[in-house]
């Protein structure tokens, strides 16, 4: 399934680019994820607990960052597998400066397999978008907590 969308982050582009590739930030922002553990260059081990309605699944997998093109784009690949199936998200994130932050546009695909594919297809689109939105919401919270400001890199 193809996915695409855009979210605005309230920090300048270079900062946004760094935050989006910071494993600590990613780990905290990804829904259901505790922490990312580095296992290679731009490659992290991920454990994710997905809770959606009554569904409850543990996924074990990897987060990878590829095709990095500082500070304008990179590819984020998230793969996980568990008892209820497996999922794979692959998105190209493109960053563009805005007056008060950065526009992050994503374009990619979500694939699922196993039981979640067989019973979840009607919900895949809407729940993927929800999870992506939660990711960016959490990221914003992280940014606010860290004291980053949209205009911090700009003259007041």
């Amino acid at each position, binding site marked *: 399934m193809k996915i695409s969308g855009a979210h605005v982050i309230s920090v300048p582009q270079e900062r946004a680019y760094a935050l989006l590739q910071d494993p600590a930030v990613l780990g905290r922002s990804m829904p259901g994820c505790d922490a990312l553990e580095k296992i290679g260059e731009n490659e992290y081990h991920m454990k994710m607990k997905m809770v959606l309605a009554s569904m409850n699944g543990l996924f074990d997998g990897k987060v990878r960052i590829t095709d990095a093109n500082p500070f304008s784009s990179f590819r984020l690949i998230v793969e996980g597998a568990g*008892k209820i*199936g*497996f999922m794979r998200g692959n998105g190209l994130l493109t960053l563009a400066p805005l007056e008060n932050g950065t526009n992050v546009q994503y374009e990619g695909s979500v*694939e*699922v*397999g*196993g*039981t979640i*594919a*067989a*019973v979840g*297809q*009607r919900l895949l689109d809407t729940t993927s978008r929800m999870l992506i939105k939660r990711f960016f919401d959490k990221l914003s919270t992280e940014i606010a907590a860290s004291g980053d400001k949209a205009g911090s890199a700009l003259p007041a």
Partner: protein
Amino acid sequence: MATTTVKPETLVGKRIRRREDPRLITGTATYVDDIKMPGMHHACIVRSPQAAARIKGLNIKPALDRPGVVAVFTGEDVKDVPSVPCVAQLPGLRQPHHHVLAQDRVYFVGHPVAVVVATDRYIAADAADAVEVDYEELPAVADPEKALAAGAPAIHPQWPDNTAFTFHQEGGDVEKAFREADVIVKQRITSQRLVPNAMETRGVVADWRAAERSLTLYSSSQAPHLLRSLLASIFGIPENRLRVVAPEVGGGFGSKIDIYAEDMLMTFVSQRINKPVKWVESRRENFLCTIHGRGHVDYYELAAKRDGTMLGLKLKIIQDLGAYLQLLTPAIPTLSVLMMPGLYKFKNISADVIGAFTNCVPTDAYRGAGRPEATHGIERMVDILAAELKMDPAELRLKNFPAPDEFPFATATGLAYDSGNYALPLKTALDEVGYADLRREQKQGREQGKLLGIGMSAYGEICAFGPTPATPTGGWESATVKIEPSGKVTIMTGASPHGQGEETTFAQIAADELGVDIDDVVVLHGDTSLVQYGIGTFGSRGTAIGGTALYYALQELKSKIKKFGATLLESDEVSLVGGSVVHEASGKSVSFSKIAAEAYRPMKLPPNTQPGLVATHFWEPPNFTFPFGAHVVVTEVDRDTGQIAIRRYVAVDDCGKLINPLIVSGQVHGGVAQGLGQALWEQAVYDDNGQLLTGEFTDYAIPRAHMMPWIESSHTETPSPVNPLGVKGVGEAGTIGCSPAVVNSVVDALSHLGVRHLDMPLTPEKIWKLIQAGGRA
């Protein structure tokens, strides 16, 4: 001597209620899952979530460590078990070894990887979850045309073109026909993959008794004797020490003709643990692992004269086989070839079938098995030709039928249609629906933007499989009739009915022939230790072949009854009247029950006669039978949403003589329901990675009662000359006649917008988009 009351009327032809229904509707029937045995264990199968992957690692220890788990078997354990069998043979057929558990690779989602055996099914299910399998994902291909394209991933590495076979057939001179044609119409037509969805999923109980070297296997099967023979040869168990029982079988629709990996796996497990073991398929497994039906991409070309005379047909079939060949998988599209001319007279055909492997569960026989695809194709093509010629589709059909005096009719594909009056059901259905009035209403409605469609199909089918040379499973059927000393009648049929109602229809036939009360007749089936060898129920063969075997066994008994009567009445001038033997001159008679008792304790035996009243007959048919009919469907299309409403459904079917019109109606209704399912709702959708996206009833739409239109069902009766009962078969007719009539109707509703063809299922969005685009697909 006492005279018995002569039964006043015959039962054949009457709407007798099904005698099997009370146990079904009170929930007291015994299915495989109702079988319980002392010491019985339970198996749960670990299945691949990947469509194509290498198994890098398999850790069964976490499962084995759980209390109550007695064994876990993997591919390594079963590597010497022979392949799951395919009995259909074609020249050059490539047949992959179908292991009962995956070896180092998996080929479709649901592929069995390991089996966990435990003391109860809950423990087994939890333990199966604990098995750790490490997959290295490989590229998959789920679409047959993509599988055949250059550069596609190889499903089986040894055959990189993903082609299991090619098959060519021709008749007449098709190139000449196309040269002489005024008009050639072409269309790509698909028949999507469908999930058979028997109400009862599959299930197996295997009980190996080492001391007796014997196996009893309960399986939800349509063909228990076939299953026994195949299992016996696979496992080297003597056939007389192998008992297969098909207890109550909750529907099959073709999907339970097969012998499955699980039948073999449970046999293996029971032999290894020396205990009975049960496996019952979950609905989820049923979606993933029981065969699917259809899966055709067809390319049609039809040649005709300007006056509508059809000259010839070219067809290329791409059959989605799935990853393996099940029992009859490669044979199914060849049935489509046999029936490609439909009911029409043209004698020039050319057909090519390409069997394509895909990373999906195998396809095989599903209600109609090859004939719905063929009928859908030719009946769509006739409508497309009619549109091209601006001819009425009914008129075009009537022009191309053989006349009733042209039977037996030799077809371009080498068949001999047994008997027919093809115009009669079509004309009857059109009269019933009020065709001329509807065409007027359609014309007026269009001016107001209303979308009314009138669609028809004139279908024929090849049934009663079949003469043995043409039927891989064997084509005859058997019956044993025992008249007990008390006069009660026991029938053992080699057909293995599972919803077709033969416990009723066969009793009707026997009651009439013997002149006994239907309640005195019991029909037994499905147990190989009870019933003489038989073939089974599929391909609309139960009554036409099994019923005929019964008929001949009954004739043998009647002649013996007459002999006993003659001896008792001390005269050869006797006749059978109802169940009694009557001496015409004196009017003296001897009753059926008296003769039954006498046969087992004869004071005087008739000459050259053995005691007892038992007869067995194995009947080999000389030909198939060819039922036919016409379905006319009136639809209304909602212009704003694309939703389709069926206003009228008129089915006029000719399945030869009717034994029980009530059961025949039931078969037509059920068949139409499944035809509507294909036309409007059902589709097994695999994504590009081979994941089945419609893998549960939440997305896979089977017809429900409230979605069904009223079916106006009636019959013409053209007896078959192939068998003495004059019957042809009706199990698949509704499905075959339905889908083209529905699609033709909807295409007709949209034809003024330029719509010429629609692929199934006709989902509302598909229709809406076409309307939006002004008919341009």
